[in-house]
């Protein structure tokens, strides 16, 4: 893969955190369901402008970690500091307002709606016109609709999905659904983008496309990305730093090369009796 520009050379687009500064800081978080511990005392940080990978064997707590970050689960212990502000619990829909968007392991699109509507739905938070104007479909409501439509069309162009604009997403092949889902997340204009196995179930060509989109999003839009992925080749090439989880605990954290040679990581993947 091509060498990445030094993150510190670029200036941050917004929110006052310099590129390379700490955007998200997860401190000593623990999460359990009844008696089952999903996450035990994990700390990790995500720097502004980087691509951060979270890897680990099945059941390591990766998806739970994303769910904690965007507020779907509230951890029993620990703190989450996003953009310098600490929060304990919040509703998932508030996470979007703060600039966190995500995609899902099993595609979670709105199956009955078209590609266009799915991506437009990602902009719901930004649309404000009340029901009165909506009823008339004139004036502010129509202007707003068109304004956002233009933004959405940019995303559609970017992801090269113009031809499926009007197709109900339930009828699309899996690879395209993943792409539409990325489009919906992008429509939210997030500061931090969480991707849960963006390449699961894809063939090589689709993986290459998706990798290109992820890098472009990161570099052109300056979006910070945290992703979970099982394809080690992809992870090692894409990410700036990797954190490895196993049985809900953090076992390694650092640049890809360092993690690759870590003995604990090798044990976790090859299976050493616990």
């Amino acid at each position: 893969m091509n060498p990445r520009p030094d993150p510190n050379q670029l200036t941050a687009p917004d929110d006052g955190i310099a590129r390379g500064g700490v955007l998200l800081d997860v401190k000593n978080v623990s999460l359990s369901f009844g008696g089952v511990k999903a996450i035990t005392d994990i700390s990790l940080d995500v720097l502004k402008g980087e691509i951060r990978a979270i890897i680990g064997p099945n059941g390591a707590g990766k998806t739970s970690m994303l769910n904690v970050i965007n507020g779907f689960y509230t951890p029993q212990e620990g703190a989450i500091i996003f953009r310098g502000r600490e929060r304990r619990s919040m509703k998932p829909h508030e996470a979007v307002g703060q600039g966190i968007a995500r995609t899902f392991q099993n595609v979670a699109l709105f199956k009955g709606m078209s590609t266009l509507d799915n991506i437009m739905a990602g902009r719901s938070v930004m649309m404000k016109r009340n029901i009165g104007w909506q009823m008339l479909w004139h004036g502010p409501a129509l202007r707003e609709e068109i304004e956002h439509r233009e933004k959405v069309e940019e995303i559609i162009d970017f992801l090269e999905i113009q031809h499926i604009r009007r197709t109900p997403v339930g009828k699309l092949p899996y690879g395209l659904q993943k792409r539409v889902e990325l489009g919906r997340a992008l429509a939210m204009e997030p500061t931090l983008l969480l991707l849960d196995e963006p390449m699961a179930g894809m063939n090589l060509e689709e993986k290459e496309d998706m990798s290109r989109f992820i890098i472009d999003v990161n570099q052109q839009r300056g979006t910070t990305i945290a992703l979970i992925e099982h394809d080690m080749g992809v992870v090692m090439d894409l990410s700036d730093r990797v954190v490895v989880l196993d049985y809900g605990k953090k076992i390694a954290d650092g640049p890809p090369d360092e993690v690759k040679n870590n003995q604990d990581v090798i044990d976790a993947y090859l299976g050493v009796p616990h």
Partner: protein
Amino acid sequence: MFYRTAGQFKTSYQADHALFPVRQDAFLLGVILIFAFVIFPLTASEFTFRALLIPVLIYSLAALGLNILTGYAGQLSLGTGAFMGVGAYACYKLITIFPEMNIVVAIAMSGFFSAAIGVLFGLPSLRIKGFYLAIATLAAQFFLVWLFQKWAWLYNYNASGAIQVPNIEMFGITVAGPRATAITQYYFVLCVVCVITFFAINITRGRIGRMWKAVRDMDIAAELVGINLMRSKLMAFFVSSYVVGIAGALFVFLWRGAAEANLFDIPLSFRVLFIAIIGGLGSILGNFLGAILIVALPVIIGSVPQAFGIPLDSAMVEHLNIMIIGALIIAFLIIEPHGLARFWAMIREKFILWPFPH
């Protein structure tokens, strides 16, 4: 051939967001409106107005209200009849307390009462999902009908326990009550239905409609793209119950002329539900198609055998009617679970491609 969309290019998003991006759709609607506003009134008999045209419109409106909730926002409701009742009783109280009030205002306001009750019984939807939610709407159904019977203030302590629509004038023309002519009532209902349908189309295709559909298709994902589940669900209950309430007010004031509490019992709820399902959940057009079918069916069953010289007594017609509706529902679900509206969409698609098969 008639439905050729080739050559109709959109040069702006504004044009793409028009009510009918395809010219032929607008033309077709124009034809239907001409029939509704000019040709039917010129040709229809008193019986046709009262037995077919007016009920079709009112049931369509009720189904439209239900469809907003069930078809668009995905919240199953079995209590439509009771919410229609709230609209009707609210309108009755408004008219009798303020006799000077314009009937349009009274009907528009009565919708707010049913909307408020709808939101109240919609609150459990924040915790309860799917079939479990049906119980909340059934609770509303049985409780409200019981209340209509027991709370004498609602029907002004009439000995009969029924509400009776007085003669109501608007601009010197009697629009409701025993003296009103069928044709004025038809026009009145038609106008209300047209206006509300126009609003409903706009709401369902814009931001709010997308929010509802997102909640319907996958509520967790909807929440994670920033949609406030509570607000969207309650808004769906509000809008839906408003429309249903208005349909209820029209039902009594512009059609039945009088009503007892049990008129709003569960059979009414189911009839409206069938219309929405047979017409097509998540469609506006479907409500009208479904209503035409359900209203026309008993008339047809009653008259066809007679035309062949086989007289049927009214109980027999009633039994056959129920049986056939049951069978029809099953048949429709098997043939096309998405209802008559999808049927039409498929036919339209064929027309657009005609004469090519694909």
